[in-house]
């Protein structure tokens, strides 16, 4: 009842014409910065902070949050069309989304991404509304050993991302761990693998590697053939540009998976949506009946990660609003905005500012509907991009990649690294090394090492801390189970062959 009353109050705030307008402005801006690689919500929100002083706090909060979750909608666009991850959380979307585009199903992929975003985004808000305070308490019981187990679970997904050779997938993952280790060690300030370059002191930005090995390598591989003047087929007719009923049916589990995994991992301040998207993709593949077709353009492979990164925003707002704890760059800027407006974010924020909290929640329901209405008609329009001839499109992809990397860090060194990783991605492809495990190792490596070392500090060196805590024990066993999957299938194959002969 209390929640219902709160929600009524919230809609009364969110439906005021001015706030509706700010919500629209926020989600439109969010979509735009999401589409542009490198241009992320934290920078956008920081740029708009001065403007928010002219607005009332509810409207400002509604708009800034709109940028935050709106960007997650836009992030899939370049991933699917150009194999350029628009946001870090959209890297996984490239795996199947771009393959769908290659088969002329770009429209279906974009459409399913928008629908998955809408469903999961709404579930995320539901979670924020219903279980925020109790869930925040649970999240606090999560500490380094649990994070280590979560990262190990993520890393185990490598067996699901492997191509023909498990050894090569594992090697690519280890190379990812190594790249993640470049930079200054947080615990001891030791410089590791920096080759004397100060630019490497804070490590290699994951976006640089992802855009390099996905987008640049893809362009290089496509440049091999001279004849191909058109990048990808685009079917005629509006109907062929949207997902089919069968697509929606195929995604039933992916919608639920993305919504739940994204929200739960989003609540943890030390995890993040990129990790969540890998885990939901792995989960989707593990339970799928057509496991072998993942990575060739299955629609669930788009729905799960795109759902995740939207429900994650709802989850990430839980520790921010209930405890004043930010888990990411974007939530840190939102926290700063609250302080600048004169609020005191912390455990008492929601009870003392119910109108603001409920207004925000209500506006997020409205914003997600706006985003769906906004994004679906854009799908056919975006799909037309692929009609451009190759000699126009390929340079544009290279240009967008450069701009994306440069605008994220302002560093020409990173642009040079981008070119280097583009070559690495091309060579890996030629030698049949899968790229996804490299990215996986890179995303998880740093957090995994930190969590392991923190855990061992907490236990004064005893590894038992990792298995003595129930949540971490469960996740580690799950990770082990996933690692054993290929072994079982191999044993099974041997057995069948033995029976045959």
């Amino acid at each position, binding site marked *: 009842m209390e929640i219902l009353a709160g929600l009524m109050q919230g809609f009364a705030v969110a439906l005021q014409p001015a706030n509706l307008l700010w919500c629209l402005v926020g989600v439109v*801006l969010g979509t735009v910065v999401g589409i542009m690689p490198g241009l992320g919500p934290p920078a956008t929100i920081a740029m708009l902070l001065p403007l928010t002083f002219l607005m009332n706090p509810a409207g400002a909060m509604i708009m800034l949050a709109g940028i935050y979750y709106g960007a997650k909608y836009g992030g899939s666009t370049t991933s699917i069309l150009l194999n350029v991850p628009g946001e870090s959380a959209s890297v996984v979307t490239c795996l199947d989304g771009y393959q769908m585009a290659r088969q002329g199903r770009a429209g279906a992929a974009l459409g399913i991404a928008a629908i998955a975003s809408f469903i999961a985004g709404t579930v995320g808000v539901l979670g924020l509304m219903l279980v925020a305070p109790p869930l925040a308490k649970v999240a606090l019981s999560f500490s380094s050993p649990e994070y280590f187990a979560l990262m190990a679970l993520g890393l185990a997904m490598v067996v699901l991302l492997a191509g023909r050779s498990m050894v090569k997938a594992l090697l690519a993952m280890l190379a990812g761990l190594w790249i993640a280790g470049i930079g200054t060690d947080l615990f001891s300030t030791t410089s590791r693998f920096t080759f004397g370059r100060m630019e490497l*002191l804070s490590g290699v930005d994951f976006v640089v590697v992802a855009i390099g090995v996905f987008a640049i390598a893809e362009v290089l591989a496509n440049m091999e053939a001279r004849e191909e003047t058109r990048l990808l087929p685009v079917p005629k007719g509006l109907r062929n540009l949207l997902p089919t009923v069968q697509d929606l049916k195929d995604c039933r589990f992916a919608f639920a998976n993305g919504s739940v995994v994204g929200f739960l991992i989003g609540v943890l301040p030390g995890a993040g949506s990129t990790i969540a998207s890998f885990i939901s993709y792995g989960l989707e593949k593990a339970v799928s009946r057509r496991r072998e077709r993942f990575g060739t353009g299955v629609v669930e492979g788009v729905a799960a990660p795109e759902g995740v990164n939207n429900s994650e925003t709802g989850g990430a707002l839980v520790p921010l609003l209930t405890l004043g704890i930010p888990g990411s760059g974007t939530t840190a800027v939102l926290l700063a905005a609250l302080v600048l407006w004169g609020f005191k974010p912390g455990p008492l924020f929601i009870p003392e500012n119910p109108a603001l909290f409920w207004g925000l929640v209500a506006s997020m329901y409205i914003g997600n509907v706006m985003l769906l209405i906004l994004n679906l008609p854009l799908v056919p329009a975006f799909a037309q991009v692929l009609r451009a001839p190759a000699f126009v499109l390929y340079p544009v992809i290279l240009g967008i990649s450069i701009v994306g990397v440069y605008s994220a860090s302002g560093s020409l060194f990173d642009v040079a690294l981008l070119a280097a990783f583009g070559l690495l991605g091309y060579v890996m492809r030629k030698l049949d090394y899968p790229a996804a495990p490299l990215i996986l190792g890179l995303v998880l490596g740093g957090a995994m090492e930190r969590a392991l070392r923190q855990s061992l500090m907490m236990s*004064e060196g005893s590894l038992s801390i990792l298995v003595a805590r129930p949540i971490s024990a469960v996740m580690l066993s799950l990770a082990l189970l996933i690692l054993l999957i290929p072994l079982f299938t191999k044993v099974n194959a041997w057995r069948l062959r033995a029976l045959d002969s």
Partner: protein
Amino acid sequence: MKEIAALAVMAFAGSFVEVAFAQGFQPTRPIEVVVHTGPGGGSDLLARAVALMVEKEKLLPVRMQVVNKTGGGAAVAAAYLAEKKGDPNTIGFFTGVWLTSPLTSAEARVSLKDLTPVVRLVLEPAVIAVKTDAPYKTLADFVAAARQHPGQLKQSGGSITSRDNVVRQLLQKHTGARWAFISFPGGGERMAALLGGHVNMMVIEPAEAGEHIRAGNIRVLAQVSDRRLSGFPDVPTLKEAGFDVPAVPQVRGVVAPPGIPKENVAYWEDVFLKLTRSNSWRKFLDDNQFEDGYQNAAELARFYDEFTDRMREILKDAGIKTVR
């Protein structure tokens, strides 16, 4: 987005008129303000808040534009400023890490001493906090427990060169007790580790602590400050609690590229002095529980040396190799 930014500029456009200064130097282009953190980081937020206040108080004829040059602790931002040698329209916001990262990383070649000092702006005090259900009522309780179980109590904090660890090293040296320091990259994770009971103690910014105290989650044992903060009238300072160690503040201020004429430095000193006397500034300090740390360029240069010497000694005590 540009349009909206332009709107924001127009809203403040009135403020650009009627600004006149006696000095010879006047900025002609928008001021590029270099910070070493990404959007949402401490320096970034301070720089943006200052830009806002400078506009509100009409202290500059041009806009201030924050530029994030992240990487290498502060090495990339410092090197970028050094490259802008002689550029009158660029300044940077520094923190203590600009002085410490050249001490620990051979790759960080540009130190604050290679740049032109302008002013010191803010001192951020800190408080020492434990969870409410912890058995320690005073800092002495905590130290006694740490002495009884060497290495078993834990403190969550940032990097090992951060102020959190400096306070720990000083206290350990003073008392002979020993407890572990666990690094977390994000402030949120540090706080979550304390609230979840995974660590025993944390050195925390007063503004961040305030809300958790009000909600009854944490208790403050002592404040790392020379005099009691307005928000914590009943909490003893380190000295009052019986620990005669220097209250190391987190320091923030402004530098300029090398090769800047004296009159430019004087101009900036004047702008920031006016800023620190404004009402917006006082409210900003109050909201964040910061202390006014204004020092002019000459004092700041002396402060560099004191700070660097103290850091070098602390790092040595902590067993960390210094390269310079």
